[in-house]
């Protein structure tokens, strides 16, 4: 129950940023379209697929712990971590690209086209939202790693798999946040223009 309550606090945490996003998108829709066009559609999509797969392996891992398959559990947890690392790697590629293109807000920011001010706001939200998401991913990867270690040591089985389940919940939640972020950040302009 504790994990569920914690996840509710996480919803409120990200909710603040989603609210800011909604407000600014309503006010400056064109700028958001323009900003979204600068996102790399393919990297974003690949990352989404990666995370969904990682949730699958996480769910299978939980199942393994419930039926006492220690080896499968460890392997699945490690694969989940690997998927997480792939996600982080892709984000690193994207972030580097954005940085080089002067798409990090601040004195370095530069945007060709009308209304650069509000495109900067789009990017502020992009960096903040994906940044916090990535932070949560990182924490998740580490925690999954810890659980994998304890699993290897044989700590979990059909009579005690609570921590695996809880970590699973956390992982799914972080995945869900991305499922919301992805269309809001990557898919605006494609919806608009095709």
């Amino acid at each position: 129950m504790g994990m569920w309550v914690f996840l509710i606090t996480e919803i409120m945490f990200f909710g603040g940023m989603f609210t800011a996003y909604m407000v600014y998108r309503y006010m400056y829709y064109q700028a958001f379209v323009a900003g979204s066009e600068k996102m790399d559609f393919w990297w974003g999509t690949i990352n989404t697929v990666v995370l969904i797969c990682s949730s699958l392996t996480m769910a299978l891992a939980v199942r393994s712990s419930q039926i006492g398959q220690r080896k499968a559990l460890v392997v699945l947890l490690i694969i989940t971590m690997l998927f997480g690392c792939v996600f982080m790697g892709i984000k690193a590629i994207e972030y580097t690209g954005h940085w080089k293109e002067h798409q990090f807000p601040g004195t370095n920011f530069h945007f060709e086209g009308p209304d650069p001010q509000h495109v900067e706001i789009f990017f502020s939200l992009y960096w903040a939202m994906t940044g916090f998401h990535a932070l949560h991913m990182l924490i998740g990867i580490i925690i999954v790693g810890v659980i994998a270690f304890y699993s290897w040591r044989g700590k979990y089985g059909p009579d005690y798999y609570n921590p695996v389940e809880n970590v699973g919940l956390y992982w799914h939640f972080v995945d869900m946040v991305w499922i919301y972020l992805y269309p809001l950040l990557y898919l605006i302009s494609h919806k608009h223009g095709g």
Partner: protein
Amino acid sequence: MATSPTPAAERENYLNTEYGIRSWLLTTDHKRIALLYLLLITFFFFIGGFFALLIRLELLTPAGDLVQADTYNKLFTMHGQVMVFFFLIPAIPAVLGNFLIPIMIGAKDLAFPRINLFSWYLLVIGGLLMMYTILTGGADTGWTFYPPFSTAFAKSQVVTAALAIFVAGFSSILTGLNFIVTIHRMRAPGMTWSRLPLFVWANYATSIIQVLGTPVLAITLMLVALDRLFDFGIFDPQRGGDPLLFQHLFWFYSHPAVYIMILPGMGVVSEVVSCFSRKRIFGYKFMALALIAIAVLGFLVWAHHMFVAGISLYAALVFSLLSYLVAVPSAIKVFNWTATMYKGSISYATPMLYAFGFIGLFTMGGLTGLFLAALGVDVHVTDTYFVIAHFHYIMVGGMVMAYIGGLHFWWPKISGRMYPEAWGKLAALIIFVGFNLTFFPQFVLGYLGMPRRYWQYSPEFQVLNVLSTAGATILAVGYVLPMVYFLWSMRYGKVADENPWGAAGLEWMTASPPPIFNFDETPVVTWEAYDYANLKEVAVEP
């Protein structure tokens, strides 16, 4: 009651079960953690109080002649931040709640004892960050951090202050989480929801607010920090940002936050009033529902802090209406406490004096809320001393009195000793007088038009300011007294037995101080809350 009780030192209890600093710093016993919190927040109370004294000293004269303007701006900012986040929000839940909730529901400890300890450490870390902020000059944005001043103009320790509060916020969230799970899952057999003491209900409602509201403050402060550190411009109108968005996000937490502060106080008052009237609280169901109603409705009124901020007329109407709705359950509580006293058997012990003070002062503070919710009046008095007086009546006249009263009430349980009753009464009286003298003149100042956060002011406001400062010095004396005699009592106070007040509640059915796992065996509850009908009369000095 014929033989004197065994002094705590001769019996194994949570205080003497282990000695040494490691046993305290690595404890997972909710009772010890409660005392760790007590130390921490008392420290911050005096820091915040010290800033308040400096503020009031400066305001003795209309000119700014004690400190410089920038320093004054830092003083009121740090006073607010320290008091709100490092004293008021944790106080009752983390000290009294932590200590009492498991015992009141018949459990051995909280659901997550290690997270409980972690919460304390989070507050320590936040506190260290806050001390760092103070020692390196402090922030000067006001406790409300409004941009674009806070993001683009303030040349002070805004980021570290925001970080400190961010960390403290997570302490609050985890405490709330712990309480919710504990109350749901760990009640003793027979302890149904409708048998819970109202103190538990109050902390439950508070925890819901903590869990839902605090994360929004966390992200809002993070956005301010990002804006300052990386020049994001998210709230900067020059860059297309919206300063009003910040205000909405900030108040979405900070209004419910005031209910985080007051609801536990209401819980304490319910316990005290029923005990010292020897009566079941009047209208138990309504009291519990009122707590939940305040918690829920409290989330719907945030923009009443923004009536002149530039929100639309229609938004203002909606929020004014909702603000009146949230006043109703609070009124219900005041009526119920009063009704509890009717045909009771009333004792004037110190905790009850604090309860009287709470009811009176909270009523005044709450009633002035009606003034503020009235749009036409609010336009004149918002951002003036009227608001300052309003919230201090509720937070200091209400919450702090409830907290101190609660400390007195449960002191025998916590320490195994009685505080000296005569001094207790004296301190309560001094606090009551000092408080009113400090803050009542501020209502007048506010209506006259003295704005808040003013280092220097127009000379015609001086007389009222002098009265207020005089009150503050008296109040300070009143606050120091309990510190002194509580400490004194730990060595020289009368040894307390299990139930010196003859009160109802599971906490009074175990030793004072309690054993490490609270009860010798898990209680099985077969009676309703506030079962004074069946409790033996105890001769308490009235």
